């Protein structure tokens, strides 16, 4: 309170004293004259209330001007993004300045730690790709060898399949890692028909035996992150090809303002338990969700990060996963508060 002038203190003290006196008088009057209050009593009571309000406003005003830096700090911290790039900067009284300096130092540490982890995730992502490329490619080419022992073919195919699974797993884990670090989605106008066409070509190339059909009921364009959406759709197709049965259908349509990407298969379907877990678990941070499939968890997260949703309808020989995306450009928000940073300033971390 060292910023208060002597006059301000005096006025404040007087106001409080006056108010207390009036309140005391009022209480005494009320005890002595419990029956119908006279006009004089009412006048005294009203004056008391008015004085109370005036005094309160005066003290409040002084406190507000003194504590403004603290209010600023509260607002600043309340709105701070997951990765704090800005600083509070000291202001106000000596104590408040010290507090602000401490908070800023803490924010420095948080930011450094985030950047360090981000670099780590990006390095891991890159380092994993090199050996995975060599293993996948070598297996693919071995399978093309004309002199390949027919006994080896099925075993190499198993290896190839597992290798692809490892690739997908590492990509999904990396997305979770990046999401936890608060990466922001890339906003882009995307022609969904073209994106799905590319994905289908890619999947047909790696699963030549699979009967994958594309059905276009419409050709909407949406604002989305094409790489993350591709990952979500590939996860849904991977799930259908691995656990479902062909033909697998990849459909694109619209429902009102929304675009709907649907993956349908004719396999045994999801158990009610697994479907429930997919709908309710806090993803992808809840480790229990791994049992419902990390790929599906990531698909749901991607949908929700775009302001959309992933729905599943499943019974034997008829399972559909529908990924809904808002058709109109809109601010993308994460499903769980912070993970997707709200400002473009934090950049993308791919």
């Amino acid at each position, binding site marked *: 309170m060292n910023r208060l002038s002597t006059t301000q203190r005096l006025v404040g003290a007087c106001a409080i004293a006056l108010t207390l006196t009036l309140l005391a008088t009022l209480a005494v009057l009320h005890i002595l004259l419990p029956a119908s209050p006279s006009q004089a009593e009412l006048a005294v009571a009203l004056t008391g209330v008015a004085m109370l309000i005036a005094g309160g406003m005066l003290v409040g005003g002084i406190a507000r001007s003194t504590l403004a830096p603290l209010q600023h700090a509260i607002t600043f911290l309340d709105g701070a993004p997951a990765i704090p790039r800005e600083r509070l900067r000291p202001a106000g009284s000596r104590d408040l300045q010290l507090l602000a300096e401490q908070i800023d130092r803490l924010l420095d540490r948080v930011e450094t730690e985030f950047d360090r982890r981000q670099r780590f995730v990006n390095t891991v992502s890159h380092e994993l790709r090199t050996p995975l490329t060599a293993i996948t*490619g070598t297996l693919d080419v071995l399978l093309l060898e004309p002199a390949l022992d027919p006994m080896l073919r099925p075993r190499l195919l198993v290896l190839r399949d597992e290798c692809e699974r490892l690739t997908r797993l590492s990509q999904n884990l990396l997305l979770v890692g990046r999401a936890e670090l608060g990466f922001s989605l890339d906003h882009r106008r995307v022609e969904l028909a*073209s994106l799905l066409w590319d994905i289908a070509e890619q999947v047909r*190339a790696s699963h030549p035996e699979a009967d994958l059909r594309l059905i276009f009921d419409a050709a909407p364009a949406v604002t989305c992150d094409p790489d993350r959406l591709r990952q979500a759709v590939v996860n849904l197709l991977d799930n259908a090809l691995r656990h479902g049965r062909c033909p697998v259908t990849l459909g694109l349509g619209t429902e009102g303002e929304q675009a709907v990407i649907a993956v349908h298969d004719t396999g045994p379907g999801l158990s009610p338990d697994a479907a429930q877990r997919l709908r309710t678990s806090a993803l992808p941070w809840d480790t229990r969700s791994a049992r419902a499939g990390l790929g599906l968890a990531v698909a749901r997260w991607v949908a929700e990060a775009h302001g959309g949703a992933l729905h599943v309808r499943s019974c034997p020989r008829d399972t559909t996963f529908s990924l809904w995306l808002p058709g109109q450009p809109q601010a993308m928000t994460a499903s769980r508060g912070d993970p997707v940073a709200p400002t473009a300033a934090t950049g993308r971390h791919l």
Partner: protein
Amino acid sequence: MAAILVIEDEQATSEFLRRGLQLAGHSVRVSRTGEDALRRFGDNQPNLVLLDLALPGIDGVEVCRTIRATAETPIIVLSGRDSVEAKVESLDAGADDYVVKPFAFSEMLARVRAALRRGGAHHAAPVRTAALEIDPGTRTAVRGGREIVLTLREFDLLLLLAENAGRIVPRTVLIDRVWGGHDSMSDPVKVYINYVRKKLNGPGEPDLIRSVRGVGYMLQR
């Protein structure tokens, strides 16, 4: 069939690329650095370049730019970076295609075939539907013994539809593949589909191309 220059410093990767491309009938040379590749490029004049971005010495994007400054040779970039920025940077530097590692070898082969076909250096197998025979090597189309004379764009459009006969090809895919992604305000696809239709359908012959409103076009299988 084609001479391919592979620029890749990871030996395990360059080895499977070499063997796989040889099995597909191509002759292959491998360079481990950009400097070596640029030296060899002038002597060998390959039909196609497979270029890894992460190279020791000169960066892959720079190699791409240098080759593109003097030659029209198709360049396919192989990269561990999957961001849109990385793709755009490579395509701006003159790359024809961008493949993210790890990839299925068959997908890579398909892209090599497509790039060679666009480059005109490769005699790909003809595509047949019930009514049509289309030869990408000679760029001719035949319907019922009658040869159909098509412009470059018309031919590319018909070939893409024929390769996917029986499937609806979205309009945006046609724009991406035939017009290189440049979507102008006037709809080039609609106009060109009508040109192709007029040339394709003789008097009394049924229309082979079906329009799917709001989505795209389909050639009869």
